[in-house]
């Protein structure tokens, strides 16, 4: 883990200024009770680690074990069914449907990254009302998801805001959420609306941490804006870009809130997580739902590992 290494390096760097703080304070002052008690750090970690295990590791482990049973979530006994749930999962046509739905969100997320990159770049150069534009574009990220759901239910209503706006352009009214061919595009659009600003602010932060002398030097050498973007900005934001890409993939697979609030998963808009939640809590198929969750978790972890492997040690965590 790069993080532990970073911590180690820091310690080595700092140790000359505070010469071997532990050994000295313990040995020279001869009071092991002050710091030497081996369990002192554990007293601080007791609650955090207990919560971590209770709410992350216990669920992951029990989820895997449920996935091999036909448990309904209520009965005291769980019947072992081997890989039946996984076979069931991969042979039901709904599975491909939900993966197809997540493709819409994936395309949306890719678009979102491109748009965010564009606005982050132009806002990083001097622009009138820059903070106002930045604020407006970022604000949707802070809005309550249920409120966003209602805002866009109203926006997409037949004869609603969108139809009204498009009318002068000769676009006939559409059933934006009622048409199974349109609904996922509409919902993915809401997702872009909601999250673009976050990506933009992250990119903007990364761009602004690039030393300005680099642009000056490039400008002196006659580099165009595109060349400045290509050779200065792009490499500077590579870590955050790769982090955004991975969040886009796992986000596209784990979409839940917006479609659940807006359509409840009807009309062809059911996502993987909505399906899992319905299996577990509406149809009491906890075993099958667990298998679905395990598959999703495995995909997300796999994607993360591929990203770490492709873009190693980018100081995106704990540094």
């Amino acid at each position, binding site marked *: 883990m790069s993080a532990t290494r970073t911590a180690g390096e820091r310690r080595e760097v700092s140790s000359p200024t505070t010469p071997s703080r532990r050994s000295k304070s313990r040995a020279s002052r001869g009071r092991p009770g002050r710091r030497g008690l081996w369990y002192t750090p554990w007293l601080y970690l007791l609650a955090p680690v207990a919560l971590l295990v209770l709410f992350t*590791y216990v669920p992951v482990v029990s*989820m895997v074990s449920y996935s091999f049973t036909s448990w309904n979530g209520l009965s005291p006994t769980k019947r072992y069914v081997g890989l039946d749930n996984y076979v069931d999962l991969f042979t039901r046509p709904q599975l491909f449907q939900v993966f197809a739905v997540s493709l819409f969100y994936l395309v949306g997320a890719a678009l979102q990254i491109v748009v965010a990159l564009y606005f982050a770049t132009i806002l990083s150069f001097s622009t009138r009302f820059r903070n106002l534009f930045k604020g407006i574009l970022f*604000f949707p990220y802070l809005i309550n998801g249920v409120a966003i759901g209602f805002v866009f239910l109203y926006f997409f209503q037949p004869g*609603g805001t969108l139809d009204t706006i498009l009318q002068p352009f000769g676009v006939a009214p559409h059933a934006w959420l009622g048409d199974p061919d349109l609904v996922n595009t509409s919902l993915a659009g809401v997702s872009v609306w909601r999250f673009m600003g976050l990506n933009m602010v992250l990119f903007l932060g990364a761009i602004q941490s690039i030393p300005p002398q680099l642009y000056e030097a490039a400008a002196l050498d006659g580099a165009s804006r595109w060349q400045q973007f290509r050779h200065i900005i792009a490499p500077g934001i590579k870590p955050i870009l790769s982090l955004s890409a991975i969040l886009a993939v796992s986000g596209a697979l784990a979409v839940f*809130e917006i479609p659940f609030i807006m359509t409840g998963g009807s009309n062809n808009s059911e996502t993987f997580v909505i399906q899992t939640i319905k299996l577990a809590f509406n149809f009491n198929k906890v075993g099958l739902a667990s298998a679905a969750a395990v598959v999703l978790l495995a995909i997300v972890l796999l994607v993360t590992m591929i990203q770490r492997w492709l873009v190693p040690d980018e100081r995106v965590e704990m540094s």
Partner: protein
Amino acid sequence: MTAPIALTGVRLRGDVAVFLKYVSLLAASAVVVVPLLAIVLTSLRTEGELAGDANPLSAPANWFNLHNYQVAFTEGHMLRALWNTSFILFFSLIGTVFIGSMTAYAIDRHRFRGKKLVMTLFLIAALVPGVTTQVATYQVVNELGVMGTRWAPILLYMGTDIVSIYIFLQFIRSIPVALDEAARIDGAGSLTIYWRVILPLLRPAIATVVIVKGVAIYNDFYIPFLYMPADGLGTISTSLFRFKGPFGAHWEVISAGAALVIVPTLVVFLALQRFIYNGFAAGATK
């Protein structure tokens, strides 16, 4: 690029680029604002006005017609929702600050066996999307006997927040170890150092965590929806969600409800802009 371009050409191209830049910024701002504007305008109109003119962007007859807000606030039980959300916010934020700062203090200021293991446990946990494990987390919450109480979300918000731990860990590294040493020489124990030295110096990190986490909890829908289904325990999100039934097609009331929920966020955003940008940048990059 191609070297010799006439000066006027460059200026012209530059002007066009600047023009396009502002056009794109205005267009994007319109895309953000118009859906929200429709909600605000509708929330100020009466049922009769809506029936007479279906255009969602029509201006209200009376710009100060707050009747819909009154209906949304009382019949939507928003006061109760505010109380429940505040209760959850208060305890989860205190808990998160202590959990995060204690973890950071233990990991960064102590050397002990198993430290690597603990860090790896936190690192891996950050990769597990919470939404995937709810099927099993539900059973854990059930076993703990807190199902259907406000303590379920409080415990979950405290226990599954790795980002705050990262923020504290990042920040505690900038506090010189010499300060701990000085306190120790003055006879301070480990707890005194945490309480009197580290925690006060972590104030900026605490502010960041409170803002980032506070916004997340205020907006969270999933956890209260799943763990507190009772009407009396509605939070801001779940109470607003319940507008769907009774107010069915009454968009003027639903709009007012949505606006009621968004306004506090807007106020907080305007007041704390700088903290919010920095906080989310710190939070998202871990």
